[in-house]
Structures are given as C-alpha cells and as structure tokens.
C-alpha cells in the first residue's frame, strides 16, 4: 500500500524540490564524489586526464613508521657529541632518501624521542596531516567535556526563579547568534600580542608583572587560545539544550528528595543527572561533531600557524583542495574525517546506551 505522501502529492513534492535539490547538489552528491575523488589523482584544474590510483592517497596521508637511529661513532667506537654533549645522529634523510629503504621514501620526521643511546624517530608520509589530526583530536577532547560541563553549570545557575534571570540567559546566548567569523575577528584583537585586551587585563590584575604574550603567534598558546574562544562562543547554545532537559524533570522529584534529606549535591546526583541522561548524550554528540568540523576560527585567526600548530583536518582539506588545487588530497582528508567522526559517534552511542 503506497502512502498518500508519495503518490498523490505532486504539489507537495514540487514545493520540496528546491530544498531537496540543493541538499542533493551540495551535500549528498559531494559526499559520494569525495569517496570517488579520494581514489584518483583529480586536481581542481589540470590539463592531464584523471587517473584511478587506488588507495595511494590514503597511504601517503596515513603512512607512519618508527625508525631507530644509532649515534655516530668515531673510529674507536666512541659516540660523537656536539658542543652541548648531545650525541650526534645521522640525518633522517639519509634513510628516507636511500634506495635501501624504498618503503620510507618521501617520508619526513614528525617527532623523535631518546631511547638509551639511540634516537627513535617517527616519520610520517604527511607530517602536516598528522599535526592536523592530532590538533583536531586535542580540540575535540578538550572542547567536548569542558564546553559540555560549563554549559551544564550555566544551565543550573540559570534554571532558578530569580528576577532578571532572562537577562543572563540572553547574554550567554548572544555569542551563538553572532557569526563565528565576526567572533574570530574580535578575538584576534583580544588575543593581540601588543595591545590586546587579554594582555592588558592580565597586566592590570598582576600590577604589571605579567609579560605580554602573543597568544596566537606562539606555538605553545595558539591552539589553546582557539580552544578557549571556541568554548566561549558556543557554550550558550548547549546551555539552552541543557536547560530544556532540566525543565523536563518534575519538581515533585526534588521535593521527594528534599523530604528524604537529600543535600543539594545528592539531589543533583540522584535526580538531576539521571534525568539529564538523554540530553547529555545529545549534547556530547553535537559538540563532538561540531568540534571535528573546526575551521572558521583557524582560517580567520591563524591560518594553521604558527608552525602548523593550529592545523586542523577541515582546514587542511580546504587548504589542499582549493589552496593547492589538490582535490583528491582534500577529498581523502574529508573521507578520513568522516570515518573518524562516525567511529567516535558509534562509540559514544554504545557507551551511553540505555542499559536494560
């Protein structure tokens, strides 16, 4: 039995056509195209025909190896040391460019650590991609719990019957409705190394003892600064979701808990938190997805720098696809990002499932 919706509703479908068409054109088709392009050497504009290359793109992005470097020794077998007394090692490129090791060809050093006298070096097929991956994961694993937790705290504070509480509600929600690009621009001024608001405030609070920091120009602080600003920007949105969850909890449950002698904390633990379970799953998944897609902040504030310390996956995908006209490389990153997000969402669903 065909439903009425699909058979005799031509007008309805006609109305839906523009939206469906646009969604198909800009979301569904590109989604499948990305899979296709990631298996080719497609470029944005190229005189050469596109060729099928199999998983080569994935291999060059994900290629990872650990090599062990033995220190250089003199003829007597003693370790050669530099002025600071550190052992000297052969250069990595002696291996990655050597014909003896074709499997390491084209790879570069990502980072190394010391193991006894030897140095172990992690080499990657695409170091920038690896940095982007690590930065994105860091971003997600910091933003998801901190933003979710902060939003919950704000929601708990706001969920009270006080005069003027709506003012706070509005204030916290305001950054959400401002474009992230605008917010990023404003925060660039706040983070400014010379005369930024943040430096000024910190100096004021410490009576001038604080040394101004170029927050976005320093590899140690750039990613953290973007994380802090991102948390601030969207916390109001998640606060509202938590609030709606809080309002579904019957006030009688709190009264029952009060009569049983529950403290504020116990009421939270036994009434509020279990009542927010579904909301928590929602908030967590939404933040995770949004965080994986972090792009605009990086694009406006740092362009991935300094020294690739704020590279992210989406930024890299765009940078490659359009900056370097390497559509296949960009597509490959998108597909990898999709798989990572899918895996993490499934894991979250599994971990937060309703235990029967």
């Amino acid at each position: 039995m065909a439903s009425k919706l699909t058979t005799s509703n031509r007008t309805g479908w006609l109305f839906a056509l523009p939206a469906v068409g646009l969604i198909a054109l800009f979301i569904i088709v590109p989604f499948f195209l990305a899979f296709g392009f990631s298996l080719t050497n497609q470029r944005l504009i190229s005189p050469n025909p596109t060729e099928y290359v199999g998983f080569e793109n994935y291999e060059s992005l994900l290629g990872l190896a650990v090599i062990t470097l033995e220190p250089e020794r003199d003829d007597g077998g003693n370790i050669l040391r530099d002025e600071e007394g550190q052992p000297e090692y052969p250069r990595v490129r002696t291996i990655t460019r050597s014909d003896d090791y074709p499997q390491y060809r084209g790879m570069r050093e990502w980072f190394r650590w010391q193991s006894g006298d030897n140095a172990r070096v992690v080499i990657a097929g695409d170091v920038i991609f690896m940095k982007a991956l690590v930065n994105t994961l860091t971003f997600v694993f910091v933003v998801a719990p901190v933003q979710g937790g902060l939003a919950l705290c704000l929601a708990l504070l706001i969920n009270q019957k006080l005069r003027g509480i709506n003012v706070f509600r509005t204030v916290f929600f305001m950054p959400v409705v401002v474009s992230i690009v605008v917010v990023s621009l404003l925060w660039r001024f706040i983070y400014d190394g010379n005369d930024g608001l943040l430096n000024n405030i910190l100096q004021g609070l410490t009576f001038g003892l604080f040394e101004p920091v170029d927050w976005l120009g320093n590899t140690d602080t750039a990613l953290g600064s973007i994380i802090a600003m991102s948390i601030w920007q969207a916390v109001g949105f998640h606060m509202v979701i938590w609030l709606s969850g809080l309002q579904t909890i019957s006030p009688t449950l709190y009264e029952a808990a009060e009569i049983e002698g529950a403290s504020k904390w116990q009421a939270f633990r036994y009434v509020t938190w279990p009542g927010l379970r579904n909301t928590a799953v929602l908030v967590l998944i939404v933040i995770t997805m949004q965080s994986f897609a972090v792009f605009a902040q990086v694009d406006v504030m740092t362009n991935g720098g300094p020294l690739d310390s704020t590279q992210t996956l989406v930024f890299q995908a765009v940078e490659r696809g359009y900056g370097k006209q390497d559509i296949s490389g960009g597509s490959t990153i998108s597909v990898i990002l999709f798989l990572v997000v899918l895996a993490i969402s499934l894991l979250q669903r599994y971990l937060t499932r309703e235990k029967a």
Partner: protein
Amino acid sequence: MADVSLKQVRKSYGNVEVIKGVDIEIEDGEFVVFVGPSGCGKSTLLRMIAGLEDITSGTLEIGGRVVNDVQPKDRGIAMVFQTYAIFPHMSVRENVAFGLTIAGASKEEKDRKALEAARILQMEHLLDRRPSQLSGGQRQRVAIGRAIVRDPEVFLFDEPLSNLDAALRMDMRMEIGKLHKHLSATMVYVTHDQVEAMTLADKIVVLRDGIVQQIGAPMDLYHNPANLFVAGFIGSPAMNFMDVEVLDQSADGVTVKAPALDPVKLPGVGEAFTANSKAKLGIRPQYLSVAPDTHAGALHGKVALVERLGTETVVNVELTRGGRIVAALAEDRPLELGTDIALGFDPGQAHLFNETNT
C-alpha cells in the same frame, strides 16, 4: 509521640492569602483527612506541615516541638504525592531505600528495610523492577514503601489515589486503612473523594477558601453539619436546600413553611431561630421516600430525571409548587419520566440553617 498542632497558621503568596488562620489539633496515631473544593488550600496546608512551603505566620508543632523553621527531613514526616514522585531510573528496591542511601546506610540495612516494607505492601516480587514496568497502583505502593522505610511519626498523603481507576482506588484505600492500623502512626490525608474521607478518617477537616469550616468524626459531620457549606459538601448526592419561613419557635422544635411545603414542625432544632425569620431547610436525598401520607406534609411533583444505580435510584423531582428536589430511593425502582410523585421525609432527620450561617 507525634501529635500535630496548627495554631493560627497562615500562608500568603505575595498579597494573596490562601490559608487564613487555621487551627487544627491532630492527636498521635490519628487519621485525619482534609477535604474541600479544589483550590481551597488542602495541598498548601499539607505542604506546610511537610516543610515544602514556608509558614507565613502562626505555629506548627509536631510532637510538641515547634517546627516552623525545621528542615523537612528533620520533621519526622514522610510524604506520598499524587504523581508518585518515584525516581524513574532507580529500581523499586533503590527507590524504597532512597532515604537510607541518602543517609549513607549499609547495603544490608537497605536491603533488609526495603524487603520489610515490600512485605507490608505485598510487593516483594516487584523489588527488582523499574518504575516504567509498573502499573499506577504498583507505583503508588512504591511511593508508600519509601515513606514506610523512613519510619516517620507522621505520614502525609496528597491525593495519593486520584490517578488510579475506581477499582484500584478501592483496593488501595483499604490497603492504606490497614497500613494505618498496622503502623499506628499519625496520618494526614488530602482528598477530593468523599468515600475515602468517610471511610478512612478518624477526623475530617473541611476547608473552604483557606478557612476551616468544621472538624469532626465523619458521622458527626454527616449528621450534624455546622453550616450550609459542610452540609452541602458532605454526602452524596448533595443535600437538598429549600428556602423556608420560620413560623414558630418553641421548646420542642421549630415550625417552618415554604411555598412547596405545608407547615411542618422540626423537633430538636436549636433556639437560634426566631419566628418570622427566613432560614434554609436541608434534607438529605436518602431521607426522602415515596410515602405521601407519612409524617409531615408531603412534597408533590413530577419525575424529571431518573438515575438507576442498582442499589439505589436517584430521582430528580420538579415540584408542583416550585423548586426541585433530589431523592435517593433505596432499591431499584423503574420510574417513568413525567409521572406524579409525592415524597415524604422524617422531620427529625431534617436540618435547619440560618441564612447568615453559610
């Protein structure tokens, strides 16, 4: 020992006073029921005893101790809510033992007390279920179980049965009655339901607009209502009222008459009435019978509506000389609409109220 005593208790929300100076003495072990129309302040009063609402003025004592400013948990009370208020994510066992969990009791103690309470309420087999797997009646049992585990001196019930269907309500009503005998704790119970009030209560408090109308044993209220409101509120179908004129007042009774009623002498009615004044005559439907020539002057009319309930027949009679009257006739009687009928009543069972005595 936990008697509860309210002295000139008042409650205002902003400028609106909803409890207007209530005095109630509840003795230890007594079962007291608050009744009254919706919005009269029953729940508010109960919640003030529980400590969920502040007391604007007056004093509340539980067990001889003034508890106006004592936390709910320290008042020695337990409360059962109309909406059960059991925690949806906890098993029945955890729900019942919730107070002990809060107090940090050991697992053995929790299990023992939960089982004990479950046994009293015959729900041992439900202990491992979740609230979503329970019927309404079972949920209310869980809520009562949680109250029992607290071992309170005073149980507070706010319309605990109004979300249940009629048959279950009757079961649970008896259950609560048994529980009261078993625990012999003080119980304060709010309800809309007359039957619950009449069957459970040692003492009924009738409230109206935040003012106590009458306090007394159920039969006391039924037979000797203090005013028109109580007379109309207690008893079902409601008492019939008729505007009458007092003709004569003497030591052995008051003689009244109305357009629809020939003069009749009501024995045993008080001296508060003077000749030639107006009053209201109250006759319970149950005391009217189809017996034209018995006792006093009969009321003649036509049958306007018949409700046959099996055990009794409720007849709405349009009186020939103006007015309507409702009679609850014993046994099932097939009466045709529009037939003539004459109703008589025992003047000794009639009530007379002053116009001012509303």
